[in-house]
């Protein structure tokens, strides 16, 4: 429990945010749509932190993060629908199962592909993402419940603000602790110089695998919450473009910056979903023209992300 004490300040801030949000929701200031996107933003933050562990801290470029998010979502959707779960207490084991399955698949796929570097790792993870997408598209051949390319319908709605927010907080506290532990140090070593890291006795293969598995587990949690928030899943929600979304969030938030990732998630979801309320649809399409230009400028201006600590 020492690490709970250490992150006291952070928990207090989070609790104040929770009280403000809850007050807004209870007094009906925020519509149910806004409530939904706030929860969605927290889910995105949780998943993006997973990618930040993989890419931002350990330097393993992954373009397949949405696949693990999707695995979590489909697992949760299947389990809650088939087992008929609707209470919070029986939902916690399902969440754990989703995360373990995502993590296990991440572990198994990580053993071979983490030997690859940079652009080849990118293309391999992208390939894995496409394979998972193909699997979801054909999933109705395995079990009709999964719905295949028609989409998975009728998932029980369990996710609520308290659950998402406090669970995410718990995960963030653990993640911060992990990063400050020796493992976090090893991860950052590997990112800076893998050869040097292995020469001082760090088992780089194991450490990379650990970071990758941990990041995938977080994506599994995020996916599970997502499935039980929107009650509908479609394979196209988990394709390459979704993985690029997470990547953009990590880059905006800064590589190796957890608070930055959380802020970036809220900015991102606000930008993508929030603007839908204000702007007409013709203007909305321009968002996706602006974002790539922004991305290119970020890469030229600050290649480690906007909110990253300055490096020499």
């Amino acid at each position, binding site marked *: 429990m020492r690490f709970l004490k250490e992150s006291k300040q952070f928990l207090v801030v989070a609790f104040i945010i929770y009280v403000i949000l809850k007050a807004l929701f209870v007094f009906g200031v925020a519509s149910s749509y806004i409530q939904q996107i706030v929860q969605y933003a927290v889910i995105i933050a949780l998943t993006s932190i997973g990618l930040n562990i993989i890419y931002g801290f350990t330097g393993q470029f992954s373009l397949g993060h949405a696949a693990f998010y999707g695995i979590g979502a489909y697992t949760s959707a299947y389990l809650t629908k088939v087992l008929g779960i609707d209470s919070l207490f029986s939902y916690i084991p399902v969440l754990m199962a989703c995360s373990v399955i995502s993590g296990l698949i991440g572990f198994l796929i990580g053993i071979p592909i983490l030997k690859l570097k*940079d652009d080849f790792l990118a*293309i391999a993870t992208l*390939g*894995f993402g496409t394979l998972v997408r193909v699997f979801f598209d054909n999933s109705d051949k395995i079990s009709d419940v999964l719905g295949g390319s028609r989409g998975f319908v009728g998932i029980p709605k369990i996710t609520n603000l308290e659950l998402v927010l406090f669970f995410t907080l718990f995960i963030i506290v653990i993640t911060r602790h992990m990063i400050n532990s020796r493992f976090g140090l090893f991860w950052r070593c590997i990112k800076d110089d893998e050869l040097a890291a292995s020469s001082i006795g760090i088992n780089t293969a194991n450490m990379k695998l650990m970071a990758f598995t941990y990041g995938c587990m977080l994506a599994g949690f995020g996916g599970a919450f997502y499935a039980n928030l929107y009650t509908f899943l479609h394979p196209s929600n988990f394709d390459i473009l979704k993985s690029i979304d997470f990547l953009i969030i990590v880059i905006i938030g800064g590589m190796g910056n957890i608070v930055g990732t959380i802020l970036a998630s809220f900015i991102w979801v606000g930008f993508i979903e929030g603007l839908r309320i204000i702007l007409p649809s013709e203007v909305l399409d321009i968002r996706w023209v602006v974002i790539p230009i922004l991305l290119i400028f970020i*890469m030229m201006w600050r290649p480690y992300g906007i909110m990253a600590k300055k490096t020499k």
Partner: protein
Amino acid sequence: MEQISYILQQVVNGIQLGAVYALIALGYTMVYGVLRLINFAHGDVFMLGAFVAYFLISKFGLPVYLVFILTMVSCALVGYVIEKVAYKPLRDAPKISLLITAVGVSLFLEYFLSLKALFTPNYIPFPRPFEIETYDLSFFVITNVQLLIFIITFISLFILYLLIYKTRYGIAMRAVSYDKETASLMGVGIDGIISFTFIIGASLAGVGGILYGIAYPQINVFMGIMPGIKSFIAAVLGGIGIIHGAVVGGLIIGLCEVFVSAFLSSTFRDGVIFIILFAVLLFRPMGIFGKRIEKV
């Protein structure tokens, strides 16, 4: 007997698709050779080729040979601009930054063209520049579209071969892809050669785009993503940076895709291609024609 002619028919169809992949894969492999970059935007240059051809045929009704020339020129221009604007300022940046920039360029091209004022994200029927004729060769049938694809691909490859192996630019390009620093010490203008590589690659992708549009007459602003990735896999399969490897890889990928669609299910074709990718990356990362690189 019927079985054999069915298989032969699929081989013809596979070569048709594979030829287009080979044209795109050449651009990937050449750019990777000189810059060590997976040019994610290359698939979108291919898409752009199809759209320029669509525009030229449907709005101006130009003859086919003019369509080919104008499309190649405009794709070459786009490739040149992409390199100068997006990649050149980042040449000394970390490798991943360059890759993310490439993803950014790719997204920009897709979403810019999908604006409602331009082409919208919907499928657009590609106009037929000529009537389709079918020739029955007793074992299998072949259409004039397929013949056109084979002939154009062959001519492009022949010109490319002459360009790379018989001209000074080709020698300079191979020198740059072998060792950039040493090549520049020998008086090779690196910037010019990189631009030249992008121009050649983009115009080949443009040709691929027209042929794809004629063969599968429905175009869409996102149509470049999957052929782009598959062509990159083709380049990896043949050995990245090796010209004839890209052609062989493209044909293998095209044949695999058509055979999986014909004998298994068309929904599995993308999956099989990526299983090939995993197998290549794990067991022979240098590709079919690549030489093993000794670890230092």
